[in-house]
């Protein structure tokens, strides 16, 4: 379609005269949903992985929430991050969203007696293998986030450490390492909750309420107003900010 549109017909102006406009469309930050969904997944999985939620089969009542909010919700945030031009968010939330969807389905299959999942404490190599690549990917997004904010790097690095220890614990069948990974996931959850909350409050109040401790000093000063959204205040949602 675009190729045809760019080829002028005989009655159309010459190609050089076609006016190309760069179209920037503001949206609400998908990182809010992404961080909330990621934090929820880390919290639920982390507490269960640490052995605090009803034993090995306690996850059978966790998986629908992991599958839908941490999975589908986070993947949606990842895909909307393309429009937000947020390469880190798109990759981080997209991959972890997919992971929680798959993890939820795995427990769904176990609950429906299609599969019989092994006891994690005795080792689960297939899931441990996937945690290797989740760790590699999360370490990579952490270094990408370092370009903007050392605090966001630290938060993602904590999640990366949790995934790294989880893969070791699952492959080796070590309950101790699994419990340690679980609590580190909980720590990552707290940090992710902070970032999601900060994105939301800073945008809603129009000033810095919670800083992300970015390299730009102006983004860390309480009460500073780094944003001035373009809007027509008495127009419809989309043209104005909010509804």
């Amino acid at each position, binding site marked *: 379609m*675009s190729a045809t*549109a*760019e080829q002028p*017909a005989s*009655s*159309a*102006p010459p190609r050089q005269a076609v*006016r*190309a*406009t*760069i*179209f*920037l*469309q*503001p*949206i*609400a*930050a*998908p*990182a809010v949903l992404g961080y909330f969904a990621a934090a929820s997944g880390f919290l639920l999985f982390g507490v269960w992985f640490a052995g605090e939620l009803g034993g090995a089969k306690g996850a059978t009542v966790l998986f629908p929430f992991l599958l839908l909010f941490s999975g589908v919700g986070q*993947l949606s945030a*990842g*895909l909307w*991050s*393309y*429009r*937000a*031009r*947020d390469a*880190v*968010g*798109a*990759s981080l939330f*997209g*991959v972890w969203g*997919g992971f929680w*969807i*798959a993890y939820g389905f*795995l427990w769904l*299959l176990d609950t429906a007696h299609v*599969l019989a999942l092994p006891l994690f404490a005795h080792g689960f*190599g*297939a*899931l441990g*293998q*996937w945690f290797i*690549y989740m760790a*590699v*990917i999360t370490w*990579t997004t952490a270094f*990408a*986030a370092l*370009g*903007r904010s050392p605090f966001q790097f630290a938060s993602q690095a904590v999640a990366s450490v949790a995934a790294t220890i989880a893969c070791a614990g699952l492959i080796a069948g070590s309950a101790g390492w699994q419990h340690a990974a679980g609590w580190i996931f909980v720590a990552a959850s707290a940090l992710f909750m902070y970032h999601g909350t900060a*994105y939301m409050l800073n*945008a809603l109040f129009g000033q810095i309420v919670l800083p992300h401790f970015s390299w730009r000093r102006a983004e860390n000063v309480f009460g500073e107003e780094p*944003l001035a*959204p*373009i809007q027509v205040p008495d127009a419809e949602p989309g043209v104005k*900010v909010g509804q």
Partner: protein
Amino acid sequence: MASLRQTSAATGTSDGATTPRPPLGVFLQPIAPPVTLGLWGFFGSTMVISTWILGWWGAPGPKDPGYFFVFNAVIGGVVQFAAGIWSFRARDYVASSLLTMWGTFWVGWGIVQALGATHAITIPPFTTPQPAFAIWFIPLGIFTFVGSIAALSPRHGGLALWLLLFTVGIGSWLFCIGLWTGNTTWTDVAAWFFIVGACAAWYVGAMTMLASAWRRVILPLGKFTRRANIPGQRIEFPTEYTGGQPGVRQGAV
């Protein structure tokens, strides 16, 4: 299309009135690079199954895929497919076609494994010839190899992308031979090609994302212009209003 060409004409309506046609315009909308998410879905799925084929972990037979197929089907399948569809907006011919193709492959493979898990079908080991599965890899190999030729384009290609597509394309054909004949030497050699391709996929995805996040080249992608391979070099200058919301400025706000 017709309406775009007749920019200077008027439109007749049923009551005889005319309304001017809107002027011809082209909207260009920047987005984050979708290729990273797609390539990382490919990376994880391909590494898990290739290392399993080579016996680096797990046990031979259908038991282990019965556990990890869901992750391959979702992260390698659905997620990679979504990134492929978004690549249409990035106007990326290679990513939109090949990420979507490999995404559908992993979903399809996941369905086969799910049928095996529910005992609707019996999945044979690689030592049993299975031409019906082997033939999948003929089009996969052909189109991936065509992508590797496209990756040599001086304007849009790069050596890292070429390495990824070339090794996966060749690996697909070798895997096809192995499955067709039941000879695991071929599937093992193919798995090595897939591992090289998967590592290249991680590298291309990572460097693309890092360049977007840091706004400069971090490590070279082997592009065919010298400037695009110099670490620290700025090669993209985003159009943005820095006080705006996501979409109007680059990155999360």
